[in-house]
């Protein structure tokens, strides 16, 4: 069976919701408390060395990965998962250097999304060039 044949039509929403429920309170608090101030940006060395593009900002990564999963209540497509995979593996190395004035644990949120991706067999392509 090829990989394309083995892959289900849509991600397993039940599994995604299980992960989200297990970290529900901290996740909701983190997304709620985030004041969208952008002060975390300069603490991320990837943001600083990639032309200071907004998509490398820690809060941008958290909102566009975990935030997306939470807002859509786990009902996301494989395309969305590909976008999230790019965010949590290519744009973040979980160095935990990111600073939040409100004390949000951004790396833990990114790590949670990585776990969700793994549960859906969405894995990084470490062999990929560039």
């Amino acid at each position: 069976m090829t990989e394309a044949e083995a892959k289900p039509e849509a991600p397993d929403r039940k599994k995604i919701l299980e992960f989200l429920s297990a970290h529900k309170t901290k996740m909701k608090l983190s997304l709620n408390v985030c004041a969208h101030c952008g002060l975390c940006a300069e603490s991320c060395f990837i943001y600083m060395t990639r032309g200071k593009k907004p998509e490398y900002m820690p809060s941008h990564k958290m909102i566009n990965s975990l935030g997306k999963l939470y807002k859509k209540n786990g009902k996301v497509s494989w395309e969305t998962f590909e976008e999230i995979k790019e965010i949590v593996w290519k744009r973040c190395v979980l160095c935990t250097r990111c600073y939040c004035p409100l004390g949000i644990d951004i790396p833990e949120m990114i790590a949670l999304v990585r776990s969700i991706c793994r549960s859906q067999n969405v894995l990084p392509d470490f062999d990929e060039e560039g």
Partner: protein
Amino acid sequence: MYEFIRGPMAWACFSIFILGMIFQAVRFFVLTKRVQPAGLPLPLRYERKKIELSRASLPSLAAKLRVSVAGVNPLMTFVTVVFHFSIILLPVFLMEHNMLFDVLWGISLCPCVFSESSADFLTGVILACILFFLFRRIFISRVRSISTFYDYFIILLTAVPFVTGFLAVHGFFEYRSLIIMHVMSVNLIMVSLPFAKFVHSIFFFLNRFFIGSEYSLSTGSRSW
């Protein structure tokens, strides 16, 4: 309607605010657990002993400040601190509010209240800070990229009590309508504060002083 908004509605909103804040604080302590601080020297962590402001300690303190958010974003830090202190000080020490407290409950901070000119100046400072936050959100791409309608609404909602209060005190437009808007906007802020984005007002202290991390402002005695 005027009496209802100023009376029962304001009381109900204030009660929701107090109960909501208590709920959030209790929930924080229920959801976190006490842990032993790691005891490792972390770069930006405060020492247990007092920070001595002697000549010898200055280079170290200066280095710490330089890599902190105050050093990296000095203007934003300054405006944030001024803004947050002002929005607490102005309502508490405003002469008109203290006259109201005196009539209602027989308590007031008079004569330790702002003069009219000082209150006007502080109102101007607050509105300037709000404009700074708004322009920052519009013109700085990284902040704009994560901003939603909700963020802009919150900023403008914060401005309404100060604008309406200023206009009412100085006799612009119709006093009663302005006071209704003034009280309604404060009621809305009070009700939403424990549950909306304003909740950062309490979580700033809870997270930064209790949760252990590199950026903890204390020994970090709790963990999620």
